[in-house]
């Protein structure tokens, strides 16, 4: 690990000031940052510990949930209102990492965690995300874990977060504060596509600190599920995952989808919300057939590579499964 100075921010203002310094990094739980600092993939000169700031609260308001940036992944997942009003988020969080890691990991840190692309993590290989314009060894490499949607000729690293998939599906908004004041960013705009600048991953400017995340809790959110498929039963990143929510109308005999919410994980270079699939589902009966059609639509543009072609069909089936569970009710 490279040398750095360590300071603890006593207030949000102090944190923003510290974070705006060159080569500074905020430290929350440390489970992503310290990991990558050990590998010397990240080499900040200045660590601003924000973990003691008063941003742990989880608030259930009439229109939605406010998750403090420092609420732990465990606390959010087990919060009774989160489980009742947005079960997909609780399930997504509980499917991620391990109990130990979730106790340390925070909402803000999860939003800003970096990819698990093996080439990004290995200094001996080429990676445009790590070193801009140096090349990408993943493109012709071992791509089992890589993205099939949203890649570019510079980078195909998959976005690793489960939490962000659930948040993307349900219109979450991220409140940040920086040297220029406070602003809100839609979760779907928070993560950037790699395009020609895979090193730029977030719509944040230097010094901007995540304060909280707001998720509106709609009828579709209350009837939502998260399904994750991975290489072992637990404690593994997603090969494919899906957050799905449905608002249904009509009696049990002739139910119709009023509104659908779908986002996929493990397949995109960012959490992959599909408005197109959601539109295709609206007005349809909640049947396997409509689910499958929407899944075909979502994955029509997939660009699989040598080792991850299986993800196309797996993603479709995972999506059908998540929608089926949502239709059955949580």
């Amino acid at each position: 690990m490279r040398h750095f100075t360590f300071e603890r921010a006593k207030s949000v203002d102090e944190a923003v000031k510290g974070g705006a310094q060159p080569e500074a990094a905020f430290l929350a739980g440390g489970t992503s940052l310290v990991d990558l600092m050990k590998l010397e993939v990240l080499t900040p000169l200045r660590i601003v510990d924000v973990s003691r700031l008063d941003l742990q609260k989880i608030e259930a308001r009439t229109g939605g949930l406010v998750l403090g940036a420092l609420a732990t992944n465990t606390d959010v997942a087990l919060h009774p209102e989160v489980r009742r009003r947005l079960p997909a988020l609780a399930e997504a969080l509980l499917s991620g990492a391990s109990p130990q890691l979730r106790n340390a990991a925070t909402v803000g840190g999860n939003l800003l965690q970096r990819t698990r692309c093996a080439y990004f993590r290995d200094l001996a290989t080429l990676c445009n995300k790590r070193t801009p314009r140096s090349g990408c060894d993943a493109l012709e490499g071992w791509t089992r874990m890589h993205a099939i949607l949203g890649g570019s000729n510079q980078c195909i690293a998959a976005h690793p977060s489960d939490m962000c998939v659930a948040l993307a599906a349900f219109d979450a908004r991220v409140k940040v504060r920086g040297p220029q004041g406070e602003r809100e960013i839609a979760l779907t705009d928070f993560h950037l596509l790699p395009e020609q600048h895979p090193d730029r991953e977030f719509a944040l400017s230097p010094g901007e600190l995540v304060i909280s995340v707001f998720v509106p809790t709609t009828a579709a959110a209350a009837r939502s599920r998260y399904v994750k498929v991975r290489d072992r039963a637990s404690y593994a990143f997603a090969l494919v995952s899906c957050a799905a929510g449905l608002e249904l109308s009509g009696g049990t005999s002739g139910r119709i989808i009023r509104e659908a919410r779908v986002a996929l994980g493990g397949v995109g270079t960012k959490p992959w919300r599909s408005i197109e699939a959601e539109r295709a589902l609206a007005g349809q009966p909640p049947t396997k057939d409509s689910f499958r059609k929407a899944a075909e639509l979502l994955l029509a543009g997939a660009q699989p590579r040598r080792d991850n072609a299986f993800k196309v069909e797996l993603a479709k089936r995972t999506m059908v499964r998540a929608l089926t569970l949502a239709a059955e009710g949580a």
Partner: protein
Amino acid sequence: MRAELRGLGATLVVLTPEGGVQLRPDDPPERLRPAPKFWKTFAAGLPPALTLILLAPDGTVRLRRTSDDAVEPEAILLKVLRAAGKAVRTQAADAKHPAPARNALERARLAGSARGLGRRELLLTSLASAIALAVLDACATTPPISEAKPNSAIGPDLIDVNLEINGETRKLRLDPRTTLLDALRENLGLTGTKKGCDLGQCGACTVLVEGKRIDSCLALAAQHDGHKVTTIEGLADGPRLHPMQTAFLEEDAFQCGYCTPGQILSAIALLNEGRASTDDEIREGMSGNLCRCGAYPNILAAIRRVRS
């Protein structure tokens, strides 16, 4: 060599008239340009002959040896390292035990640390030969540099960190990079907490912080300043083992035992969390602790036993 340097908490600096090399335990070797400032501090102001310096973490010189031309550099290196080891040992013993041991517990601790230092002595010998090679190599390959630009050889500022470990407040001065795991193992000698992957992937380093289980390898010690930490050493009440420890013994819940401290702390936390009513819940709740020996069925049985 790095592990040994880390164990000693030292930075190694080698100066030659052409420049030198500085080696901190966790960094790549750093070339030093010829630096009169250094020569003043370490070599009476003159371009030094081969000079070896061990710096204590606070930047003070722990040891300095300069070769006179008559002696083989390798021999000097070995001598230097032996002397360093001796100095370090006396210092450590003085700091830890200012007065003779008063009771059985303290005697046991003393015996424990003596064992640890014995191993350290062994490490020093291998360090000596590794350094000898590194220095000879550096002397042969360091190109002469003309511009004389001073270069700081002093490590980062140390920071004060207080941890309440198993009910006892411990005051530490640490390199900010020290993880909670390394603070426990390297600085406090509490080696019950294990280092498996050092990347959050195995759970061997599980401890309780403020009553919650975390992987201590992915936390900086500084981040937990003032926090209560429970390690495997803090579970037994005198000779009486914690019920989870007893259950692991009775159910044969380990083979090599390397993952066991982490498993036990994780299991205790799991039962406190109250989400272990079925076998599947226990398996999921323990999924953050890997066991290469595959003692999983017996670990499950041990937890079941304590739960009921």
